[in-house]
């Protein structure tokens, strides 16, 4: 081949241009919507953090692999969820969120734990970017006037409204109700909201006990129950503390006709640890895969659960479903906005009202979940399974009250 000046220049030009064309073609095929955030994969909040994390990742996997991404304004995008481990540390989470912002991330997912969500929400709000989250329900987050922070749960003080309504219709009506709350922001607000609403409804709330944030011994609570004999004990405690309380009540043979542990019995590991003694325990239940919810992408709550189990080993929990619903909410809002402009997506999130795998997604003007549509139901362990017993519309089984005594459970 003859090499003249023109051929050499053409070849060089082609050599420079081809990779650039290639890069352009590649970028078009793999354009992404980056959604950043942090989750606690280690540290004290890691147990639920992993559930939230898996929910986010399950939705990402589903959209990218089953639906080949999402179409916004005529273009197809893959969803790129970028999560860091914040080690349950609010300071670390704040640094990581700032790093996402510095990297140009436009959409955010929340961590788990109000103490982490509160400072990170402040950073995201200042930057004017939306954050969908399922781990910060403390009232403090929704009384700051934030416009960009949305939560799949109602604020803590409104979460137990259904539970109070259930106590109101109990037969025989309880004569005395005891509250025990762990000394952390979420548990306290949860209990205080329920106490205020319960008193408004005329319930006999006679005793309120505050417990340390991390309990190594629940004997003082057990002794108070032994002497005061309440008909209902409602403890707003996290899983590990709930198990300790239940174990000490059982081994001390102290019965309560209705033992409600806000977190714990919804987990299979909790029910396995107590065996038959978990029968009849009440808890806060936000989601059940058997609920008849339809989802525009997954099909239904049940189909989401099936998809999750096919691809993840970790047991499914309501935080997994609510995590996935955060992505679903984003996709609905982006489609409605027909844009990836954070301000337009934020506006569509604020007015969103759609049915999803997690239930009907609708937010209050302050950004927390609508207490009716996204509020908790009353769960009860019946025949080893976590069932929904109230309200009747969501019921998967009839409630048992009073629950069998420990001695009866011991006999099997």
């Amino acid at each position: 081949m003859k090499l003249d000046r023109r051929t050499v220049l053409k070849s060089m030009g082609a050599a420079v241009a081809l990779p650039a064309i290639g890069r352009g073609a590649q970028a078009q095929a793999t354009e992404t919507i980056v959604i950043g955030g942090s989750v606690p994969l280690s540290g004290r909040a890691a147990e639920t953090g992993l559930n939230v994390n898996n929910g986010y990742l399950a939705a990402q996997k589903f959209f990218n692999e089953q639906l080949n991404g999402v179409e916004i304004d005529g273009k197809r995008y893959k969803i790129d969820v970028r999560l860091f481990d914040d080690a349950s540390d609010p300071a670390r989470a704040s640094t990581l969120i700032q790093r996402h912002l510095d990297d140009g991330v436009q959409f955010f997912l929340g961590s788990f734990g109000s103490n982490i969500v509160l400072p990170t929400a402040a950073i995201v709000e200042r930057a004017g970017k939306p954050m969908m989250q399922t781990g910060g329900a403390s009232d403090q987050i929704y009384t700051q006037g934030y416009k960009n922070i949305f939560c799949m749960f109602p604020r803590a003080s409104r979460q137990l409204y259904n539970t109070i309504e259930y106590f109101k219709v109990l037969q025989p009506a309880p004569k005395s109700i005891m509250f025990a709350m762990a000394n952390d922001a979420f548990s306290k607000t949860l209990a205080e909201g329920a106490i205020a609403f319960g008193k408004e409804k005329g319930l006999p709330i006679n005793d309120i006990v505050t417990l340390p944030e991390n309990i190594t011994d629940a004997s003082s609570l057990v002794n108070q129950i032994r002497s005061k004999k309440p008909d209902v004990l409602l403890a707003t405690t996290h899983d590990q503390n709930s198990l300790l309380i239940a174990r000490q009540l059982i081994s001390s043979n102290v019965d309560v006709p209705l033992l409600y542990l806000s977190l714990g019995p919804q987990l299979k590991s909790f029910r396995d640890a107590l065996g038959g003694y978990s029968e009849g325990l009440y808890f806060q239940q936000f989601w059940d895969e058997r609920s008849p919810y339809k989802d525009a992408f997954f099909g239904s709550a049940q189909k989401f659960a099936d998809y999750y189990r096919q691809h993840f080993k970790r047991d499914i929990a309501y935080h997994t479903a609510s995590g996935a619903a955060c992505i679903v909410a984003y996709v609905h809002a982006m489609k409605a906005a027909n844009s990836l402009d954070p301000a337009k997506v934020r506006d569509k999130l604020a007015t969103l009202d759609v049915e999803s795998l997690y239930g009907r997604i609708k937010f209050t003007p302050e950004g927390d979940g609508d207490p009716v549509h996204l509020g908790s139901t009353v769960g009860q362990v019946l025949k080893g399974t976590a069932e929904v017993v109230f309200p009747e519309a969501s019921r998967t089984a009839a409630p048992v009250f009073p629950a069998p005594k420990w001695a009866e459970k011991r006999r099997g």
Partner: protein
Amino acid sequence: MTMQTLVDGLVLGGLFSLSAVGFSLLFGVLGVVNLSHGAFVLIGGYAAYTLHEKLGLDPLLALPVIMLGMFCLGYAFQRSVIQWATKRASLLASMLLTYGFALMIRNALVLIYSPDFKSVTPAYAFDSLSFGEVTVGLTRVAALLVSIVLLAALAATLRYSNIGRTIRATAQQEQAAALCGVNIRHVFALTSGLSAAFAGAAGVAIGLVMPFSPPDETLWTVNAFVVVTLGGIGSPAGALVGGLILGVVNTMTAQLIGAAFPNAMMFLLLVLMLVVRPAGLLGNSFKGSR
């Protein structure tokens, strides 16, 4: 009710004592503040959990095996890590090093066992013993007995056996002991082994009575620190007294003042003790208290 609270406090105190004695021994003899002590406690708990879940072995029967394994781990830990740090740098360096190790162990436990809480539930986990109006869970009674027996055995070993005398001699005057032919490095490693073995035993006892998860390691290190400050450094009796006082103060505060206040009272006691009697109730002139 007061008697029930007192008994609950003593049971809890037994756990505190057992979990602190290893920390106390290592501090007393080597002068090392082992910030990975709580992580060693948890390793014991997870070992009991694994043996119970996989082999169906009762935690109390698994106790000697776990203590032996932890002894070896503690021995190797001193010879390979702590000794290296104290020789090449300082005791402060060993503190930072053990803190780093605590973080590594915590995350390793997360990787192996997941961050989910675990609990050891043998067949008698929900049974109880009643003495008049006082009722105590069987696992709590078992944990208290394990604590008392092991602490008594350690006290007897330190007081009457040759190795116990060697450890005490090394703790009192390291150079003099070396001049008398004591292999100091071996004694240090033995002490570290004993410390880890007792931490492992505490983990088994804790696993019997309460659920645990990797982040709890901090709690057990802090508790050990408070117990040692109360009871005095380097002696099983000091750990026992400190632990029992802490346990009773804990339950009495919860009962009489409020369930949210035991931690506040615990640290108030710690500050008072540091001001009034820094060597602790049964403190001695071992390395850590000088």
